[in-house]
């Protein structure tokens, strides 16, 4: 068969038959996969353990990474990453050994439907001043987005408080305590906390934690008793890391009521874990906000009244994360607790 004549299109461009386009596309995707193999493997490994896509993509990508390495097809990407000052290589994988320190505490917990509740520890904290302010560290997962900024904004005019956290450094949307292979929070805090030297920390986790995890070589499904036990150990380790880093008071945030019944049941389990682990450590205050975002009947609602009595949307488009109004509602509430603890309620 005679070679097909390739028609010339506008601007001198030549048209191509679909077969050519398919070859171009497959070469681009195929070679692109080998060139970016390590990056694609990292992306695949970030999927939840129970996702069928994760198993499939990790299974495909691991040998591709090896072949890419053998053929040195990963070198161009490494050079580019090096030129950009980026870290290269695959993820660390596995779980983190947990060292749990259990300190009997004297905490008390009260929970009243319709009202936010706290677990409080005896105070005895230093009095922050403008010259020596309370250094506050806000950290966590996707539930800090907007809340972290609300903390920064709300404390701008409070002389005795300095927030030292930064977006995407101290909080980011993909973090989960149950996925140290994606982001190892305790390891990060061991480096970061001494850098910023906080007196107190406000910690949010739970948004992404409800996924299967591998614990001591065992695969655990969320919401089961063994999973919750393992999760408790991870939460305890996280609390201890902050305490060991010199944080004198930790405000561990509970999760709010969620839009779906399943997610709500799950976060109730999380909240029990947080309260139990906080109760074991006098430095930790568990802040229960479950009903802070519920209506007068204790049911989920997206809309609540603000200080002016206006109905405003508290949640982001997914119905779970906080929108700006929700972030400020939460921040105002937590700042009140912190101010009572540290004796600066007059500044609010």
């Amino acid at each position, binding site marked *: 068969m005679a070679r097909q004549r390739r028609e010339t299109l506008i601007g001198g461009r030549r048209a191509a038959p679909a077969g*050519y386009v398919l*070859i*171009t*596309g497959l*070469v*681009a995707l195929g070679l692109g996969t080998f060139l970016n193999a390590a990056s694609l493997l990292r992306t695949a490994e970030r999927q939840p353990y129970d996702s069928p896509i994760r198993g499939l993509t990790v299974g495909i990508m691991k040998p591709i990474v090896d072949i890419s390495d053998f053929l040195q097809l990963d070198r161009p990407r490494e050079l580019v990453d090096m030129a*950009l000052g980026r870290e290269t290589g695959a993820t660390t994988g596995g779980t983190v050994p947990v060292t749990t320190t259990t300190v009997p505490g004297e905490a008390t917990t009260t929970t009243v439907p319709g009202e936010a509740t706290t677990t409080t520890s005896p105070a005895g904290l230093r009095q922050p001043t403008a010259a020596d302010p309370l250094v506050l560290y806000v950290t966590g997962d996707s539930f800090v987005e907007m809340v972290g900024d609300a903390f*920064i904004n709300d404390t701008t005019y409070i002389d005795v408080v300095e927030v030292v956290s930064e977006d995407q450094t101290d909080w980011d949307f993909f973090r989960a305590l149950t996925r140290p292979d994606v982001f190892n929070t305790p390891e990060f805090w061991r480096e970061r906390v001494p850098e910023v030297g906080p007196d107190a920390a406000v910690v949010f986790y739970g948004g992404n934690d409800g996924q299967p995890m591998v614990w001591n070589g065992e695969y655990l499904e969320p919401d089961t008793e063994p999973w919750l036990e393992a999760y408790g150990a991870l939460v305890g380790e996280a609390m201890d890391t902050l305490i060991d880093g010199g944080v004198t008071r930790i405000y561990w945030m509970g999760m709010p009521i969620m839009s779906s019944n399943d997610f709500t049941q799950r976060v109730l389990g999380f909240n029990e874990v947080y309260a139990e682990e906080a109760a074991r450590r006098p430095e930790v205050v568990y802040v229960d906000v479950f009903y802070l975002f519920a209506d007068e009947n204790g049911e989920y609602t997206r809309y609540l009244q603000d200080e002016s009595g206006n109905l405003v949307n508290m949640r982001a488009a997914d119905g779970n994360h906080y929108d*700006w109004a929700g972030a400020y509602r939460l921040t105002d509430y937590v700042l009140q607790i912190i101010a009572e603890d540290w004796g600066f309620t007059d500044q609010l």
Partner: protein
Amino acid sequence: MLFPTVQFAVFMVVVFLGNWLLMQHPIRWRWFILAASYFFYGFWDWRFTFLLAGVTIVNQFAATRIAAARTQGGRRLVLTAALVVSLGVLGFFKYYGFLVTSVANTLNSLGLHANLPLLEIILPVGISFFTFQAMSYVIDVYRNKLAPGTWLDVAVYLAFFPQLVAGPIVRGTEFLPQLHPPRDPRHLDSSRAFYLIFIGLAKKIVIADFLASTLVDPVFASPGLHSGLEILFAVYGFAVQIYADFSAYSDIAIGIALILGFHFPENFNAPYTATSIRDFWGRWHMTLSRWLRDYLYIGLGGNRRGRLLTYRNLMLTMLLGGLWHGAAWKFVVWGGLHGLWLALERAVTDWRRAQGIAPLRPSPLLHAFQRLGTFHLVCLAWVFFRADSLSTAFTMIGRIFTTFQLSAPILTPAVLIAIAVGLGAQYVRRPSVEHALALFSRVGPVLQGVTLAFTLMIIDALGPEGVAAFIYFQF
């Protein structure tokens, strides 16, 4: 399913093969593309597919009834009913909460406490785009610009996945004729298609996501912590970010359609080179501008009923255009500002004409001045569009003037380069791009693939980990 993901790449290979293998079997081809499009849409939430199917059925039923109606009154009645249903669906999913809270808060400010029912409604992805397409189809049938398509053709038109969730808004008059005859697999404008897809990926991943995470999001979240200079550049940064983000989606959508054999209308044409607000709207989200002009502005009477009504029509069109972007007062203000400027431009032109004043003689200096002025007016409106509330927007504008200082640690060289590239690229002349594409189209497919693979590697290396959703999905 987001465009810049591995899942979509795999999906696209399957669709490409099916598309061209089934091309000679028109009915099978239609069912295949329809299934692929519903799969693509259902990937977000399978329940949304019922909404898409419902909108399709209602509007196609209306179109056939309009064509069959014997009287003008009957045609108008069916059209009105179809528009009420489409706008009702859009209003319920997109504006219900906004309307109820606005009414409740207004009553509250008057001392009247109303307990209005609030519902938990999920906003279906892309609802504004496919309802607008459906409305344009029925209106075109009513205006005798288009004969009703078959049920299958219209279902394919409204669900066609490249433009389904974030445009461009393709009209029935542009899409349906392309279904007949079958597209020719021997003559694909692939070099332009690959250019659009890859330039789209670069704009989204390298420019938009980078500027969002390093400059725009932090400054808009806490403007009180940033100097006037930083806020000013964050506004410029957002102007570049939203252009890079939205035009990226359009580019990729047009490119994907092109390798499937379809030609979509252009959606952006270097909007920040505009010399007036009117010129800007001829270059920014062009398919929405044309939609608003043809189905709303002209429907309101356009410029045929005197000057004052023309200004009113411009204002109303832009206010509703603002509201189309989201259920919040800030979008209304954004649209209102554009409406005001369009009306003012028109009023000045009318006044000069009435006074017999000749138009200004074009010169490079005049163009530069007009471009600078237009860009800053557009940026002023972007502040309202992006800020989380009206009060934050006013705070930011105030701080630009009251806290202006040269200290700006957030403005790193990389940030400034990204802004400069985002703006400067709009001045790249088309012949330069066309020349490069012509060269690219002349090399063999393997070499093309290798070039694209290395381009992909650089884009992936330059972008942040993970891909943020496109901004216009929420509209």
